[in-house]
């Protein structure tokens, strides 16, 4: 208890030791992820590698959502739309024979940015539960658009082969794909860290803390929130590009509201506003789902209560739980 109080009081001039301690958890997470393929070598390597690749991709998507919810107080219930945009950019382009990853990525980023700008500009005129509902509506709009794309599999989705890099099929190796996802996750994590600490990020966090106070000193929340919304959408589209490559398949299910809900789930489970918590949440989510669904068909009945317990008893999510024991 005392320790918590002390931590709250010593905010601005953070002592060196505590700063190191704060870095310990993210460093440990990335170290484990970097070494995972070597460890997996001794077990069911292909299966573990695929599972961990997916975990990192969801971690990436959830991290971008954490930027919105945890830092910007924008509870988007349609974030999977950007996952779908990234995935379909790969699916649609590769079905036309364009399988260069940079073209696919560029298209994904451009479409995600436009979609975020258009829907964000409207959504951010609302607040609270209305923002949740309108982002949900935009996400579902995209879901139904994808289901109606008969040329690209409609409801059933679309199989694809992995992207090429400069004409070379290097991503065909699961290990390469793993490390590409790892590099993307690390890069995005460092970028998000920088954004959160920057002038822009501080304004965003201030808006979350007290929007009226921020307006009273001259900040217009809308501009900052819309920018964050676009940035987060583009990051999530990167996760979508990776997801399409990892599963060699895209379907409207990537865009559905259940997937958006899962992402919120992951962020809350991992710890809001921590960024690395999103990775922990994604790991807990995919591994638990994998493990529990092996036990029983009704795994959701166990899974749901676990989240309730985390929210009730560990408000800061897994990230604070792990930091506390250190």
């Amino acid at each position, binding site marked *: 208890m005392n320790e918590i109080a002390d931590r*709250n009081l010593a905010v601005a001039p953070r002592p060196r030791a505590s700063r190191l301690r704060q870095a310990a958890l993210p460093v440990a997470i990335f170290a484990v992820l970097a070494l995972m393929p070597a460890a997996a070598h001794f077990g069911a390597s292909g299966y573990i590698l695929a599972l961990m690749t997916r975990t990192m991709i969801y971690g990436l998507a959830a991290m971008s959502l954490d930027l919105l919810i945890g830092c910007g107080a924008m509870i988007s219930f349609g974030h999977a739309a950007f996952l779908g945009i990234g995935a379909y950019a790969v699916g649609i382009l590769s079905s036309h024979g364009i399988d260069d990853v940079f073209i696919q990525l560029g298209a994904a980023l451009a479409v995600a940015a436009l979609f975020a700008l258009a829907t964000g500009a409207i959504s951010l005129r609302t607040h609270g539960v209305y923002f949740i509902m309108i982002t949900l509506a935009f996400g579902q709009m995209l879901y139904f658009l994808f289901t109606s794309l008969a040329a690209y599999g409609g409801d059933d989705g679309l199989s694809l082969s992995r992207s090429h890099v400069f004409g070379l099929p290097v991503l065909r190796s699961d290990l390469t794909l793993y490390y590409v996802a790892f590099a993307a996750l690390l890069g995005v994590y460092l970028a998000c860290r920088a954004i959160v*600490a920057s002038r822009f990020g501080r304004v965003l*966090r201030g808006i979350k803390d007290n929007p009226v106070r921020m307006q009273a000193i001259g900040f217009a929340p809308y501009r900052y929130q819309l920018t964050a919304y676009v940035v987060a959408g583009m990051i999530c589209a990167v996760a979508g590009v990776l997801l399409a490559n990892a599963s060699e398949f895209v379907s409207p299910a990537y865009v559905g509201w259940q997937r958006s809900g899962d992402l919120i789930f992951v962020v809350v489970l991992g710890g809001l506003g921590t960024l690395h918590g999103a990775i922990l949440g994604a790991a807990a989510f995919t591994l638990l789902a994998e493990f529990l669904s092996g036990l029983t068909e009704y795994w959701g009945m166990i899974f749901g209560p676990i989240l309730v317990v985390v929210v009730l008893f560990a408000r800061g999510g897994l990230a604070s739980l792990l930091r506390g024991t250190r």
Partner: protein
Amino acid sequence: MTGDALTAPVLRLTDLRKSYGALRVTDGVSLAIGPRELHAIIGPNGAGKTTLVHQISGLAASDSGRIEFYGEDITALPMDARARAGLVRSFQIVSILPGFSALENVALAVQARSGSSFRFTGDAAAEPALNDVAMTLLARFGLASRAGFTAGLLSHGEKRQLELAIAMAAAPKLLLLDEPLAGTSHEESSRVIATLKELKREVPIILVEHDMEAVFALADRVSVLVYGRIIASGTPDEVRRDPEVRSAYLGDEAAEAMT
């Protein structure tokens, strides 16, 4: 005495109105605030003081009327644009960033007026140009030792001082203070009054306040707001003697206590 006829007013309200349903909360308020003036607005509970402050600051839109700030029509501007223009307010219920340190609360207000905030790299909390100004202001308001404290954990009086420091960090050309003494202890309130005495030498102030002692000690001019209308406006002495004010608001007992 005030001499504001010699120079243009910094703020001019013309026939400002606002209704909530059938209730006219602001009913044709016209007012001019001169430079170097501390203008107090007093009135009984429910007179519409806070609504008027919201209208002036831009937190609430006016139904009709006109607000000019240093000659510019700002009636249609949102609160953040008015703040950037130098019309800076405080709140009746303390409004700070509770999760940030006291230093960052002030540094953010400095950041708002120095350079772009669309910068995505660099540690904002470590910018000396922002922190130095913020630190000077904290020291000035007696909060130097509280710089690293989480603002939400400060005492009520300290939060009041912090809010003033934030307001001054925003480089105000007019301060709009909504009951800065609300909820403070006697000791804390004399501290705030002393601070306001200093501030009024630097910047024109509109002070909305319940505390009569403070108002008559600080104000150059006083306006009395009753049911959304200004029933009297003048020097403290004039207002004190005004028979309408006596019957409508001050009451004979209170009036006697003040003479």
